């Protein structure tokens, strides 16, 4: 189950956000961080793979052309977490996740659905939220429920748009561990758009960097995340150091003046 993009162009209403984007094959089991400055097209890329935006070019997953799938087939293969949090409405977490299963996994029996929901609430550690209304939750808690809506479906391709933006450190690690486990055990592919480069370094097999010009680079975190690339992409002076346990860490020192970028 590999993901492949060839000459993909996507955008909004006659405005292409990126053009002719081609990526090397992303292998099964890969957790890929999608990074880049604001408004560079990270969300657009995830949305277009999720089938929410019209594209030109070819996207294949597990040998199937994603654009050729019916919406029914797509919901079983692709799980997408949008950036906006679930709305603060009087819907309890359990039925938020249950309704996602009803819509996307009509092939599951009631027992299978209930078991999957049970497991995802345990995996994410949000069992205590199951019967609480979204309107009575914090932003972070709602984000966890949104994640449960995606993870419960056990899709072989997961697209998560800033899944940890509202979470504290404990929950950030919890979520990335859960996604890491899913990709390891199910040999699924996960693309995670994020701004935290250290989380990317720690958890991801590969990093996809999108630059302001629309160019993309894909490689292992240590190959791609270099001071030079960070200067070009983010306009910052940064170092890659190693902590006492040998884990690489990005240290951002200062923003570079526009003339140097």
């Amino acid at each position, binding site marked *: 189950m590999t993901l492949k993009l060839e000459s993909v162009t996507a955008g909004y209403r006659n405005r292409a956000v990126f053009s002719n984007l081609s990526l090397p094959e992303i292998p099964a089991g890969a957790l890929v961080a999608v990074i880049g400055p604001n408004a560079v097209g990270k969300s657009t890329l995830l949305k277009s793979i999720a089938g929410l935006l019209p594209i030109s070019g070819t996207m294949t997953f597990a040998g199937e052309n994603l654009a050729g799938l019916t919406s029914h087939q797509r919901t079983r293969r692709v799980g*997408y977490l949008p950036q906006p949090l679930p709305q603060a409405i*009087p819907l309890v977490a*359990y039925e938020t996740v249950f309704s996602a299963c009803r*819509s996307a996994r009509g092939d599951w029996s009631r027992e299978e659905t209930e078991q999957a929901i049970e497991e995802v609430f345990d995996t994410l550690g949000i069992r205590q939220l199951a019967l609480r*209304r979204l309107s009575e939750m914090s932003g972070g808690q709602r984000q966890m429920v949104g994640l449960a809506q995606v993870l419960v479906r056990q899709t072989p391709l997961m697209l998560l748009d800033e899944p940890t933006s509202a979470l504290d450190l404990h929950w950030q690690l919890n979520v990335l561990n859960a996604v890491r486990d899913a990709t390891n055990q199910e040999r699924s592919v996960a693309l995670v758009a994020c701004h935290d480069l250290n989380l990317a370094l720690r958890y991801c097999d590969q990093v996809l960097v999108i630059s302001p010009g629309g160019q993309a680079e894909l490689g292992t975190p240590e190959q791609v995340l270099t001071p030079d690339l960070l200067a070009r992409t983010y306009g910052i002076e940064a170092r890659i150091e190693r902590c006492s346990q040998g884990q690489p860490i990005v240290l951002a020192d200062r923003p570079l003046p526009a003339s140097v970028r």
Partner: protein
Amino acid sequence: MSSVSAAQTTKLGDSAPRTTLASEYRRFVLRRVVCLVALAVVAVVALLVDIASGPSMLGLADVVHGLLNPESIDAGTRVIIEDIRLPYALMAVVVGACLGLAGAEMQTVLNNPLASPFTLGVGAAATLGASLVIAFNISFLGLAAHILLPLSAFVFAAVASLLILILSRSLGASVHAVVLFGIALLFGINAVVGLIQFVADAESVQQIVFWTMGSLARASLDKVMIVAAVLAVCLPFSLRNAWAMTLLRSGEEQARSLGIRVERLRLTVLMRVSLLTAAAMCFVGEIGFIGLVAPHIARLMLGEDHRFLLPGSALAGAVLLSLSSIASKLLVPGVVLPVGIVTALVGIPLFILLIIGRSRRVAL
């Protein structure tokens, strides 16, 4: 079935045997079913009290006997129940249910708690249709005025919905576009109705004003059957969309990624809403408050799961209009007020009580 592992779980009380989430949720759902049944019981009681109340007050037992076994009561009471009170009371129930259901669906697909069939000018369009017939004595295909008036109201309401849909689709059917067109249409139509009132004679103006107040006095069992039939046709389709609407409420992008065709859902729901509104209004005139508040009452009681919210909102609408109907007969002894001007007086205190009750529960 394999799944993401539970290795990193932050579990509380792991050592104790625990109930499954599914069984806890089933108990939660049961409470909602009980709530829905209670609402249905209240609706039936309100219906009976509505039949019992009027210039000559009847006992509830007489009403029940009269309905179940008409031969057991005297002829005078039977006429009052069957010919006068029953159509009136049933009309309150079916019209209230139509408006409650329409309001809930509209608030969901427009993601706007202020939406109601009147936000989009559908109600105003029905008034325009009625006003034209009243003011200009329009005749069409030899139809009598009492048939032409509701027909015209219905056609205008349907055309207004269609117009909004066409305009919205041609400019991208965003939620804000639909609401803005609706409000613009509302003001435009109100201006035209104002113009008609300005040029019409005094008697016509009086009739138009009476129409805008909404009255159940025009009810008959035939008309009740027509409105009930529209409701019976629409409700199953509404419930078929219940999961999709629940997902749409939790987030539009998430719903899209789960295969919900949001534009199509919005279109079919708005068409259903216009049908329900037009059917509800064409015989009784403008009743504006129910479609706005009934969904909020249902949401406070039953939450946002549309399997419960939609029937709950229809029942809340029925209860509200029945209570309003009772109040319209009792507020001024000997006079039956137009029900449209009583709905807000009855609905607002009930609504505030529910909000206070809910906020107290949350605070605790």
